[in-house]
């Protein structure tokens, strides 16, 4: 028999089923639910060794449905906040919760729960990856380059917050929806960035995280209440960035900047999809930061070569973004763009609004940019001074190599 390998089938299905069962039994029983679902996958992995069912997804859904009774029994024996389920009519209602549209609805509820502002912002990412995406603690730790212990603590904290704050498993309505959606998009954006900027040696981890963020973002786009211009913009942004994911590193895992990337490796279908999303995103008067970031990413992709990049346009988008979101990193980027266009006076003006410490652990980016500035303006000694400061503070070994190479080239001048 042929083995149909459906990418991430188990992982995705795990997120779906945990969400549906949580809708039935409530968030307070999440532990029992997760264990029950995990058990389903262990059983499947053993029995499918010999033969895969013809419809693997349907098999898994049916198995999860069967767990409803198991969990019910477990809760009954614990006499523990038993939800009221009688035979007959409720059984039909439960059956309906396993229909595709309802599964999506349940997943969306789980996303809103995981991204609830009452949860610590770092805990949200871990909790979302665990419950909505079906990652194990080990996988989350590897993806976020964090210790397993830390992830465990974050998950515990998230669960505790859900209990003490008595969070409801629902999709918020009205005015709260907008606020809560902002928080959801922020988490999806962070998950995506964790993948896109990951220092992990493992390309798969990068693809996993970016893919997950996109899958969850797509869920937002499928639902009437959450398919807003900014969610389209966020998805467009993810498409544009993902298109470059493969070109971003060499086979030896060296980081390539936009100047060095082989543009023929960019993934065209994703760029097209991003463009389509962007058309939907701009049907509004109010642009979000995702709109501007997507516009910037699109502008980079539009240039056939690095030299063709329309820097003035990109600078304009960054200015708009900075107004909306006054972050020091945007100032730094604008300074870098001005160096690129040889507008050293403006570059200097942006630098003057910045202190290295504003960028916290990414201060090395400030020093590296300043080094470039001095090198371009023929102040080589100052350039070397700055790049040494950058080398002193950089932690990522790939970026360190990149800086060292640059330093070596300058030394030879």
């Amino acid at each position, binding site marked *: 028999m042929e083995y149909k390998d459906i990418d*991430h089938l188990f992982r995705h299905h795990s997120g779906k089923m945990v969400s549906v069962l949580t809708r039935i039994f409530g968030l307070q029983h999440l532990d029992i639910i997760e264990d029950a679902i995990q058990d389903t996958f262990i059983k499947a992995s053993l029995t499918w060794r*010999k033969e895969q069912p013809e419809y693997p997804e349907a098999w898994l859904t049916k198995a999860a449905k069967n767990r409803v009774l198991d969990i019910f029994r477990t809760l009954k024996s614990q006499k523990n906040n038993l939800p009221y389920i009688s035979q007959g009519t409720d059984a039909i209602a439960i059956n309906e919760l396993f229909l595709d549209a309802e599964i999506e609805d349940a997943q969306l509820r789980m996303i809103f729960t995981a991204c609830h502002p009452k949860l610590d912002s770092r805990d949200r990412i871990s909790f979302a990856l665990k419950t909505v995406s079906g990652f194990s603690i080990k996988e989350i730790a590897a993806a976020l380059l964090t210790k397993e212990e830390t992830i465990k603590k974050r998950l515990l904290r998230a669960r505790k917050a859900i209990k003490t704050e008595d969070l409801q498993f629902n999709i918020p309505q009205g005015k709260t929806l907008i606020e809560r959606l902002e928080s959801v998009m922020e988490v999806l954006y962070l998950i995506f960035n964790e993948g896109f900027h990951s220092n992990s040696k493992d390309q798969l981890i990068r693809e996993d995280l970016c893919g997950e963020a996109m899958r969850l973002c797509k869920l937002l786009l499928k639902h009437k209440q959450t398919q807003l211009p900014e969610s389209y913009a966020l998805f467009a942004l993810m498409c544009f960035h993902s298109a470059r994911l493969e070109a971003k590193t060499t086979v030896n895992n060296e980081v390539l900047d936009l100047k060095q990337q082989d543009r023929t490796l960019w993934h065209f279908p994703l760029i097209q999809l991003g463009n389509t999303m962007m058309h939907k995103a701009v049907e509004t008067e109010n642009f979000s930061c995702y709109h501007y970031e997507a516009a910037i990413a699109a502008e980079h992709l539009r240039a056939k070569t690095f030299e063709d990049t329309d820097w003035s346009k990109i600078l304009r988008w960054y200015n708009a973004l900075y107004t909306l979101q006054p972050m020091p990193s945007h100032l730094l980027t604008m300074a870098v763009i001005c160096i690129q266009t040889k507008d050293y006076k403006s570059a200097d003006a942006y630098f003057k609004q910045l202190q290295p410490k504003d960028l916290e652990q990414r201060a090395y980016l400030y020093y590296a940019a300043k080094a470039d500035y001095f090198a371009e303006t023929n102040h080589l000694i100052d350039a070397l001074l700055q790049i040494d400061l950058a080398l002193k503070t950089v932690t990522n070994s790939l970026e360190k190599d990149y800086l060292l190479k640059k330093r070596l080239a300058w030394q030879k001048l």
Partner: protein
Amino acid sequence: MIFIGADYADLGLSPEELQNRMGKWFAWGNKMEQAGILRGGEALTPQIRRIVGENRTVSDITSAEVKEIVGGYYLVEAKDFDAVQEIAQDFPDYDLGGTVEIREIMVFDR
């Protein structure tokens, strides 16, 4: 071939890992089948009931209470131990500390 090792449930494998592992098992089973050497095999559930001694003392044990458990077996037809050892190279769970024990079915002379 008898497979001995930790139970999957006790290893904290993620759904993704379980799926990957299943794929490897499937590929292995397929390979043996195509070679025409597979005669049977089963995976075993982790519940154990032991009946021990004169008093026929019964105890129910879960996989968590034992270090290793027989997880399943494959029956293959091969020339000798060396041939089965070769087949066992593809056993997917060595990295989980798993063991393959090769035993021969005894054949009595008439």
